[in-house]
């Protein structure tokens, strides 16, 4: 039996006050990814079988590097938001859920930062 009033239970268990933020970020990154991915796939397809030099020249162009960094940030942010929802839906044990979500977020940050560093290094340092 609980002595808490219904309003108290709602305050304790209700909105975490960032659901809209999560939803909105998921949609904004989705909208950003549509043109970025079309550009990326077209670029990659046009470089099939290209030499290291031509790939390097493509990556080293400021426009390519800027778009790629934007793509990486949007993609990893979108991916970790999505996987978070999947975990929240299917993992019911609170501790496992929390640990999995933290692991996914850390992995997304590390991989995303690695990709950005790789792009910037290729763009800045000569081949």
């Amino acid at each position, binding site marked *: 039996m609980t002595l808490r009033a219904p309003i108290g239970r709602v305050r304790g268990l209700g909105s975490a006050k960032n659901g809209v933020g999560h939803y909105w970020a998921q949609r904004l990154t989705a909208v950003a990814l549509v043109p970025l991915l079309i550009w990326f796939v077209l670029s990659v397809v046009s470089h099939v079988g290209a030499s290291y030099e031509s790939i390097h020249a493509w990556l080293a162009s400021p426009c390519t590097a800027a778009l790629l960094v934007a793509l990486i940030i949007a993609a990893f942010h979108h991916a970790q938001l999505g996987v978070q929802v999947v975990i929240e839906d299917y993992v019911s044990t609170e501790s496992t859920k929390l640990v999995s979500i933290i692991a996914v977020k850390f992995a997304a940050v590390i991989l995303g930062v690695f990709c950005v560093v790789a*792009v910037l290094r290729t763009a800045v340092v000569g081949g």
Partner: protein
Amino acid sequence: MTSRTRPLSPHLQIYRLPLLAIMSITHRATGVALALGTLLLAYWLGAAAYGPKAYATAAAVIGSPIGLLLLFGWTVALYYHLCNGIRHLVWDIGRGFEIPAAYASGRLVLVATVVLTVVTWAIGLSI
């Protein structure tokens, strides 16, 4: 004792999921697959940053039969998630919720996924 005909929840091993339900869970599955597929992107960008030797190795790995199979799955998942994601964005602005419209957009997504995948690989393999 009178038995009441209550609605039953779908028994997933017997119940034949309608197209819309299959497409919904496929959106999630391709999303998770793409999140894992970022490893391929990180590998490729990292190889380009490490230099010509690393890039040659990565190109050989990705160009191997298993690499190409992974890349093919990556393209299918990407195109499906991209097209179906646009469908979700249209739903998010409150359009296309009627059942016939949802089926029509669903079929459009499936056709677009196949066409885009075939065209991408036809161009990629012919270069």
